[in-house]
């Protein structure tokens, strides 16, 4: 039977002081893994959303496939990828990216279809080509909802990165795993707090960004339906 020392404090601050360098590099890795995942995720989701927006019939199959990807547990996906891509960044990223797709596509399509019909008519009447209509009218108006999707995807990804520790790349998840293996509470608590803090600050940052980009919308990310 494993017993924890009774005198062990919830956080032993001296340990944190001694490991600042490692903490910094794991936080950096966490941010890097998240950024790569969201950027690649958006790069894939954006064209698919435009396709779904233009050709309505493609929406159901696209969300079906990405829905299945979303449902597969992250750990399962990581484990299945290890024989193919090894204990690498690629393994973690494939899992993280596939998880963001559904969220991003749903929101981007919802944002685009929330643009009022008469606004589009007016733009066409003013001589906008379909491409101009998309970039000058539809996308700017859809931006709050699109960014709302990016916020959800980012926050979920940051939480999910910790699981990547099991396949070797997990940002601050490494501390949680190490803490579990050695039953060292300080590391576990710190890993959890760091991850949550990262997620909440990313959420706040994106919220501010959206305010800056769309000063006209007072109710950010309002549901279009």
């Amino acid at each position: 039977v494993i017993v924890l020392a009774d005198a062990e404090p919830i956080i032993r601050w001296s340990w944190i002081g001694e490991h600042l360098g490692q903490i910094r590099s794991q936080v950096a890795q966490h941010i890097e893994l998240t950024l790569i995942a969201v950027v690649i995720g958006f790069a894939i989701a954006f064209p698919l959303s435009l396709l779904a927006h233009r050709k309505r019939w493609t929406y159901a199959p696209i969300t079906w496939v990405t829905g299945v990807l979303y449902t597969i547990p992250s750990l399962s996906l990581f484990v299945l990828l290890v024989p193919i891509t090894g204990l690498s960044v690629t393994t973690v990223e494939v899992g993280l990216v596939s998880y963001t797709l559904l969220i991003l596509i749903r929101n981007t399509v919802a944002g685009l279809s929330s643009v009022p019909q008469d606004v589009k008519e007016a733009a066409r009447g003013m001589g906008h080509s379909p491409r101009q209509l998309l970039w000058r009218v539809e996308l700017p108006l859809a931006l709050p909802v699109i960014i709302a999707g990016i916020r959800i995807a980012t926050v979920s990804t940051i939480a999910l990165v910790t699981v990547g520790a099991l396949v070797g790349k997990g940002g601050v998840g490494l501390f949680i795993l190490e803490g579990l293996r050695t039953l060292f509470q300080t590391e576990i608590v710190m890993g959890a707090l760091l991850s949550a803090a990262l997620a909440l600050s990313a959420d706040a940052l994106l919220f501010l960004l959206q305010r800056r980009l769309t000063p006209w919308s007072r109710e950010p990310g309002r549901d279009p339906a």
Partner: protein
Amino acid sequence: VNVIHWLTAAAHWSGENGIPVRTFEHLQLSGAAMALALLIALPAGVIVGHTRRGSVAAVTIANLGRSVPSFAVLVLAFIAFLRLAPRLAFGFGPTVVALALLAIPPIVTNTVVAVQGVDPDAVDAARGMGMSGRRVLFGLELPLAAPLIMAGIRIAAVQVVATATLSALIAGGGLGRYIVDGFAQGDHVQASAGAVLVAALAILTELVLGGVARVVAPRTTSGRGHWVAVRQRAR
């Protein structure tokens, strides 16, 4: 291909560590956690939603729930059990508590938004007809809110089934055993087979609850969309 061999080998379908036993454990863990979560989240969500003052609470809970990693919650629950009730730490306890904590936010948020989102005119009309607060709640608000509430339950359940896998890390049972043991022994076939089983169970959960939702609350089309949409509306 080896994974298929592993999955179809008769030896893996019987005994203490057989697929039926592990699947049953997995469902037991998930079921107990969902029951606990529903017991807490449904009444809480209904009360907050009924008073129509809950959007801030709903968003905050959703945000917090999303930003705390499930992996961390599980490990923290394990440590808490080791400290407070060491005898229970190696059983179902920590996993069930952790999974319930994870399931609560989506259920509460969806319930609050669903009940709150019921057309105020309909509520006024019901009151005007002389319905009591209780009858408005059970006769009008809850039936109208049912599709969204079911969507929240479904999201929570899929997440719980997926996360129950991690329970094997803290010496728990379930299908995660194959993944964790396979990893520890360098047996990728076993790990992959476990991963396939968990994925299949998660997808099955989604489909079954989707079917249940269609029966109980016919207007639901897609659960996840609501979880996304809900957050936007609540802002």
